[in-house]
């Protein structure tokens, strides 16, 4: 298996402050990987660095293409969908417009229309609310919308930044089930950043643990979940 995404010696900076200190990891095509770590460990920064939204050095290669010199929007067009923290909902626009925006870089109009119908089949609640302003949806519905919007790109790789944030446990279960389904059925490679380590490890097949800007542990999700020391020192449960 070749790696879809290679990250080597990634260092990222916010002004003078260095947030990542030589991060290295790979994502296998078709995998569902989770990046775990405490607050401030650098999880969000890692995702932002992949999309070139933060100043960084080192090398990030996606299917052989170097990402570091590309703009955020051109990275997205390679097929990388990023669901940011806070979901990035276009709050003043309707649910349907949000889905349209997800596919804004695509040219195939007919396929876009059928994809919107597919999203409504995936997430029936979005169909009920398709003319409603997205900002009026509940947190869970907005997260569904964010995932649907990302899928409208027909991405090869999907980056999710704390999808469980602020959601009720039951809603989180639903959402993670859907993510698993997307990964298996639509063959979308997924990298999910989570603080809810227990749930993320149930879902993922591979996991990386990050601490103060470095990868300190990697392995199969099951192994990490079962490793008492790792759990106590890094995952805190």
């Amino acid at each position: 298996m070749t790696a879809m995404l290679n990250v080597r010696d990634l260092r990222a900076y916010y002004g003078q402050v260095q947030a990542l200190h030589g991060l290295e990891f790979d994502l296998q095509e078709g995998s569902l990987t989770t990046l775990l770590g405490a607050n401030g460990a650098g999880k969000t920064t890692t995702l932002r660095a992949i999309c070139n939204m933060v100043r960084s050095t080192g090398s990030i290669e996606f299917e052989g293409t170097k990402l570091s010199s590309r703009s955020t929007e051109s990275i997205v067009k390679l097929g990388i969908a990023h669901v940011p923290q806070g979901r990035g909902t276009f709050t003043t626009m309707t649910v349907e417009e949000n889905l349209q925006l997800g596919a804004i870089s695509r040219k195939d109009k007919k396929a876009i229309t059928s994809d919107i119908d597919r999203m409504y089949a995936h997430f029936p609640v979005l169909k009920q609310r398709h003319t409603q302003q997205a900002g009026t949806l509940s947190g869970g519905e907005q997260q569904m919308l964010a995932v649907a919007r990302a899928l409208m790109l027909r991405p090869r790789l999907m980056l999710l930044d704390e999808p469980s944030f602020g959601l009720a446990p039951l809603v989180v279960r639903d959402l993670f089930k859907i993510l698993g389904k997307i990964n298996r059925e639509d063959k979308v490679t997924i990298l999910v950043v989570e603080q809810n380590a227990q749930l993320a490890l149930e879902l993922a097949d591979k996991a990386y643990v990050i601490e103060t800007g470095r990868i300190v542990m990697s392995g199969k999700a099951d192994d990490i979940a079962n490793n008492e020391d790792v759990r106590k020192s890094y995952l805190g449960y």
Partner: protein
Amino acid sequence: MELLLNQVLAGIATGAIYACMALAVVMIYQAIDHLNFAQGEMAMFSTFIAWQLLQWGVPYWGAFVITLALSFAGGIVIERALFKPLGNAPVLTHVAGFIALFAIINSVAGLTWDFTIKQFPSPFGSSPFLGSQLISTHQAGMIGVTLVLLLLLYFFFQFTRIGLAMRAAAAQPESARLVGINTSWMIALGWGMAAAIGSIAGMLIAPVVFLEPNMMGGVLIYGFAAAVLGGLSSPFGAVVGGFLVGIFENLAGTYIPGVGNELKLPIALALIVTVLVVKPTGLFGRAIVKRV
């Protein structure tokens, strides 16, 4: 009663121009969060281009369309050359940029076409509209052109993909980039459209105020008043504000003793101050909460 109706209709006609200027100001404000003080001068320069084309014998509507296209391109050039490099520079840097642009355009226009006032023709003539003494054909034309323009803009922003992308880029730039929208070009496009809308306002008002390099000074202040009244975050509000300011200005000039023609402009300024003190978001604007 006749006087009142007459003043209201005339107010709506000039209000149409203020609405266009306010709309141009709001479009750029939405894109870059700054007020374009040179919007009026850009419109004036466009109008001079139209005048020059007419002098060269181009028919009116031909000149109108060419001017629109040139203004659109000019707006994009200004954004690329001056305001894109400024990027996230502090407010004062932008203000200095706008004032420089104002002075440059004003002087270049004066140098090229001198400062004497010129007649600018109206394509609608100035006879009574439909035989009525209430409103002239040019005033009716001003209202008509503005309404058509607003309708076109509404359809553009509501029903085209590029319009949707522009709205997204203005509302949530970061999310817009994450769905693959080139926000930087959307801003340039906004500048182009604002310049084109301003050129329409210039060409429509020029037959009324005469063409000269300082013709848009007052108009822009009314445009600002309209944008502030309607709410700087709302294009729809800017348009409503434009018509309201036009009507208000005329009624105040007619009915408040001592105002007359000379004190109309201070009324616009007083309106700006009042709105900013009483309801800073304007009639239709939303309060924008920023994390700092």
